[in-house]
């Protein structure tokens, strides 16, 4: 009796840890959707592919796929910078020309870019799942950081969680206390008025893509390590789930995306653990449908005073 109770509670604890870890990753991706939506009212469906690129690039740089192998830290930094730039490039090439076109046109383009990038990855890296060889990744990441009873928290989980928390804090500081962050919020509220104040709207939108895509890239690297699997369609599923998280939080709201990511991560792990693991993917969809039916504006409503 006591034994099963202990077993139950340690299972619960383990899942809580796993859920929070997963949730923090969803949050990292979700803020990218929400920030871009905030400034240009576009659901950037190719955001998941930026995340996928982050995973592939860090993998390639660290394993010498492109000829030279770099130290892990350097590879990560370069991959993240590349993701940020790729996001900016994506906007300039694919979305900016459609800024005044009907929203559906941009949305379809976003879906097109998503498919294009997936296939580009397929072409470059192939369909086979890649995994980080243990030798190139700092060994401590896979060691347990904390262990009580059956509950194990790996250093990687600790790293994922602290990275996510630090980046979210940094993001909030940027959005609320810098000139460019203020401009992002102003654009989200009234683009024309922001332009009349001398804001170069295109440039601020580029910064927004850079920030969101950089965070997405970080998430891709972390997930690539966490599941030790990197493949061209990884961005598709993660993207849908993170998008669901953004919708749950209220698309356009950064705190909403963070909370939505956390909730979704927990729901997925607990749902998978207590109902059936084959349902875990469906949970994201169920959450999204439920939100759209019950409270389309999400937890922090898109029409809340401060959309950022």
């Amino acid at each position, binding site marked *: 009796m006591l034994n099963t109770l202990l077993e139950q509670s340690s299972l619960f604890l383990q899942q809580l840890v796993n859920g929070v870890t997963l949730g923090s990753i969803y949050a990292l991706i979700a803020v990218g959707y929400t920030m871009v939506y905030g400034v240009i009212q576009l659901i950037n469906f190719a955001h998941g592919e930026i995340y996928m690129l982050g995973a592939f690039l860090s993998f390639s740089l660290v394993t010498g796929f492109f000829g030279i192998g770099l130290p892990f830290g350097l590879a990560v930094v370069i991959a993240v910078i590349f993701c940020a730039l790729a996001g900016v490039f994506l906007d300039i090439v694919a979305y900016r020309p459609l800024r005044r076109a009907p929203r559906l046109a941009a949305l379809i383009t976003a879906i097109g870019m998503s498919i294009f990038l997936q296939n580009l990855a397929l072409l470059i890296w192939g369909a086979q799942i890649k995994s980080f060889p243990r030798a190139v990744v700092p060994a401590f990441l896979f060691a347990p950081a904390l262990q009580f009873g059956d509950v194990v928290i790996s250093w990687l989980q600790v790293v994922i969680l602290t990275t996510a928390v630090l980046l979210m804090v940094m993001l909030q500081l940027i959005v609320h206390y810098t*000139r460019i962050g*203020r*401009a992002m*919020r*102003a654009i989200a*509220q*009234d683009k*024309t*008025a*922001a*332009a*009349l*104040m*001398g*804001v*170069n709207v295109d440039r601020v939108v580029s910064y927004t893509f850079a920030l969101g895509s950089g965070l997405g890239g970080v998430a891709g690297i972390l997930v690539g390590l966490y599941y030790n699997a990197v493949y061209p369609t990884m961005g598709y599923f993660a993207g849908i789930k993170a998008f669901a998280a953004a919708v749950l939080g209220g698309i356009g709201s950064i705190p909403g995306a963070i909370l939505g990511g956390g909730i979704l991560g927990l729901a997925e792990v607990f749902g998978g653990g207590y109902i059936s693991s084959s349902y875990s993917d469906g949970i994201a969809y169920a959450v999204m449908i439920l939100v759209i039916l019950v409270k389309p504006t999400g937890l922090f409503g898109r029409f*809340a*005073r*401060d*959309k*950022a």
Partner: protein
Amino acid sequence: MPLLQLKDIHCYYGNIHALKGVSLEVYSGEIRTLIGANGAGKSTTLMAISAIIGLKQGEVFYHGTSLAGRAPDEIVKSGLCQVPEGRRIFPGLTIRENLEMGAYCRRVKSAINADLEMVYDLFPVLGERRKQAGGTLSGGEQQMLALGRALMSQPQMLLLDEPSLGLAPLMVEKIFSIIERIAGEGITILLVEQNAHAALNLADYGYVMETGKIILEAPARELLQDERVKEAYLGE
């Protein structure tokens, strides 16, 4: 040389020919007003000057140089700032942040802070509520915020689009006296108004606009006496 000069500008919204050859000029230090009925094209004129709307034909000159091809932010940087119709403050930004948005193109922190204090002096209600969201202000207060925000850009010239819109008479009076004060500081003003009486009393010179064209222009004093203006815009 006029500070601002519009030469035969044409603008379209899709197929709608909103401005059909508008020409006007404003000299440094003046207040000029542009009056006209709803839908005449007054706001379109200001949006064309600010490069929010593109020109199909014609040119805008500022300081004698053409603004063709300039982006809205470049125009603000050259000292020409607009207070748009309906105020369009940022409702979710605090009053202070709204004012800081006005100073977006400026870099010198100490000068910006000094101007913040200047605006708080000019509009004490903004100073008292600086940490509140702009959206919590009343219409009149929002107009003050919109004016203060524009002043934060250190403008040479202001384009004001119906600053009295939707305000109680007392507030209208207050806003107009503030505009007069701003002009007294040497800031050139182009004032768009439906309140023709107040606008013509304040301005040096006026333009009357109808369906996308300037149909009449004269010193404001003369327009106040003009029979057509009296009948159509002054309700006399």
